[in-house]
């Protein structure tokens, strides 16, 4: 996990993002515990309250559950929700591409062509 102190993205968000990606990618099995908040703070060289906030964020999203005195474990991932999360990520990335294209003065048609080319290149 790479944490940037100067990216402008709050550190707790960077941590939550990294765990979310791993959980959605299936790197944690159902019921598996995340590292303890103090252990994680020690390893990432950040304060305990920041790791705690990251885990609370994941709990809020329904990805993990807090267990009194034992830490946070990963919930069963609902496949519909998983799909939804991935779809949202795709949309966000495409929106960013649309914004960038507008700045570059590309038309919608050109953008779609570029996307097609990139897909073809990747498939090869």
């Amino acid at each position: 996990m790479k944490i940037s102190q100067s990216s402008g993205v709050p550190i707790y968000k960077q941590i939550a993002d990294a765990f979310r990606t791993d959980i959605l990618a299936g790197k944690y099995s159902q019921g598996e515990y995340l590292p303890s908040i103090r252990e994680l703070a020690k390893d990432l060289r950040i304060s305990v309250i920041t790791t705690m906030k990251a885990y609370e964020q994941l709990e809020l999203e329904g990805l993990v559950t807090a267990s009194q005195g034992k830490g946070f474990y990963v919930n069963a991932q609902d496949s519909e929700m998983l799909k939804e999360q991935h779809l949202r990520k795709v949309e966000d990335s495409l929106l960013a591409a649309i914004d960038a294209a507008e700045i570059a003065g590309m038309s919608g048609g050109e953008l779609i062509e570029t996307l097609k080319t990139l897909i073809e290149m990747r498939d090869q």
Partner: protein
Amino acid sequence: MEKQVIAAKNIEKKYKNFTLSVPEMNIPSGFATALIGENGAGKTTLLNILTGIRNDYKGSIQYFGQYSEKEMEKTAEVRERIGYTGTDNYYLPNWTVGQVCSLSKLLFEHFHEDRFKKYCDDLAIFGGNAYDGRKKVSALSDGTKTKLMLAGVLARDTDLLVLDEPASPLDPLMRDKLCELIRDYLNSGEGKSVFFSTHNISDMEGVTDYAIILEQGKIVEQGFVEDLKEKYILVKGEKADIEAAKKILYTITTSNYGFEGICLAEDLDKLAGMDVVTETPNLFKISVAVMKRNSLIK
């Protein structure tokens, strides 16, 4: 999370031209808490009261959720659980490091000589040389004396460390090491807590969970750092909006090109219509803003 390692109520200490007055202060259990404030804000007085070094004050203090200040004074068991380092070296100058070690063993039931020697080695107290019990305390530099005091408290089994300005005499590398030692300590068991005063907010930010800001003998802000980062927002804007922004922002610094300041989150919508960018402030920026609002410095 609601548990407090120290809960103080109605603390008051009067000096001729200065009064420390703390109606309520809670230090959360299981976290690192920083006491921040200007020179002369009353930080050391407060720490000395909390550690029982001073007892000429009014008010009540509860330790570990169960002991009163009177019990703390009389019960060795409570004091065993607290480790303290001060800004003055409390080991006598003519003591040798070996004497520091044997006296600590006499004073505290849970002082581990092997751990003390290991910390002396880890913190390079003998400059990379082997442990030398004959070395005199007076021959150590200020920074090294602080390291020796840290080795002394970390060699004990405690549940709370109270450190008065531990970072000040230390070099940048050792400050980084200090943060690591604090994290290791917090991770070493359930409910381990650290309370330290500091001027070096930036250096200690990565280890600070809860912050208490003291100005003119009063607590002017306290809270978990992540909550403070939501309460105060860093705002940067254009020159044209300076006058309007001055009326809204909590603190503001202006230049020929624009302004930068801290805005309370609740006031953020009042900036609507202005061309501003907002950022999450770090603890340093928040502390400076809060101190500035309450300082006598013009």
